[in-house]
């Protein structure tokens, strides 16, 4: 592989990030795939906040790119998906938190990364995933008082708006 230009001295590649994560949180983190600039991991819902704090403080993950959701109707579970990026290491980590479908609640990462604010609101708006500790968890794209979550698989379209 060609030398990546501009990598800061002592920068961590995806492999190092994955190793540090698994060493620190062997009970919470399960790495599914690693390349030199991507880390894919499943994170336990209980440990999410600790893992995120560690990533921010020790691993220089300073930017949250996206928070989104996945609805697994048949498996009766939901995913909250976080894409967290490090400018200095040039690594993007995709952290997936698995939640039960009948009670999709997870800790908010907005206190760590302010950029997650609207992403989490949108995920709540579309999937109904509740982010505990979010400063203002309200509808963002649909009007106030909407009583459905349109991106859930059991949502029936074709309604008269």
């Amino acid at each position, binding site marked *: 592989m060609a030398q990546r230009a501009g990598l800061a001295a002592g920068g961590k590649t995806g492999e190092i990030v994955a190793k540090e994560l698994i060493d620190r949180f062997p009970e919470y983190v399960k790495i599914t795939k690693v390349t030199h600039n991507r880390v894919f991991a499943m994170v336990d819902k209980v440990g999410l906040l600790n893992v995120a704090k560690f990533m921010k403080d020790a691993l220089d993950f300073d930017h949250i790119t996206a928070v989104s959701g996945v609805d697994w109707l048949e498996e009766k579970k939901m995913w909250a998906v976080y894409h967290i990026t490090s400018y200095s290491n040039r690594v993007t980590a995709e952290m997936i938190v698995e939640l039960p479908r009948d009670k999709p609640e997870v800790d908010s990462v907005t206190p760590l990364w302010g950029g997650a604010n609207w992403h989490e609101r949108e995920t709540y708006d579309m999937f109904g995933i509740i982010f505990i500790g979010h400063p203002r968890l309200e509808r963002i*794209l*649909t*009007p106030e008082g909407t009583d*459905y979550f*349109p991106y859930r698989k059991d*949502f029936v*379209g*074709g*309604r*008269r*708006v």
Partner: protein
Amino acid sequence: MDLSLAPNAIAMSAQEFLAWSKDVMDQLLTASGAKKAVDKITAPIWSWALRNANYPLHFGVACCALEMAAASGSRFDAERLGMIYRSSPRQTDVLLINGWVTAKLRPDLRRLYEQMAEPRWVVAMGECAISGGPWYDSYNVVQGVDTFIPVDIYIPGCPVRPEAMIDGFMKLHKKIHKEMKGTFLED
């Protein structure tokens, strides 16, 4: 016309007096036929003026707004036909809706329409504004703006070409000419 109230005019509040006197003048004009005459005389001038200076509201909703921008550019130059975009609904005659209207936008758009001064017209530009377009069965897109405000001209297209948009405004010109409203905007 209730001229029997005239002796009481001095005891009226300012608001009451204004309403009463306006009513008196209005009914006098109507009864004498002066209103109709004035309307008839001024209608061609008004119609000409309204046609040649119909200012659309500069309110870009979606991708058709780019065609609106292209139409006002040098190649199509819609300004030669009197279309100057104004940013305040108080200064505009035409509400040009160019894109899908979500349920969240609907009350604000209705409010913009109501803020516009009479006479006013509404142009629905593009499939989304006419019927919802590709999002006709979406969870959040209104099935056409005519579900909540009256629309005068529909311009189909996805997106509408600038020529088509200008043609739609020519149709609006015809409509304004046909309406022939005078100073009192009555026919």
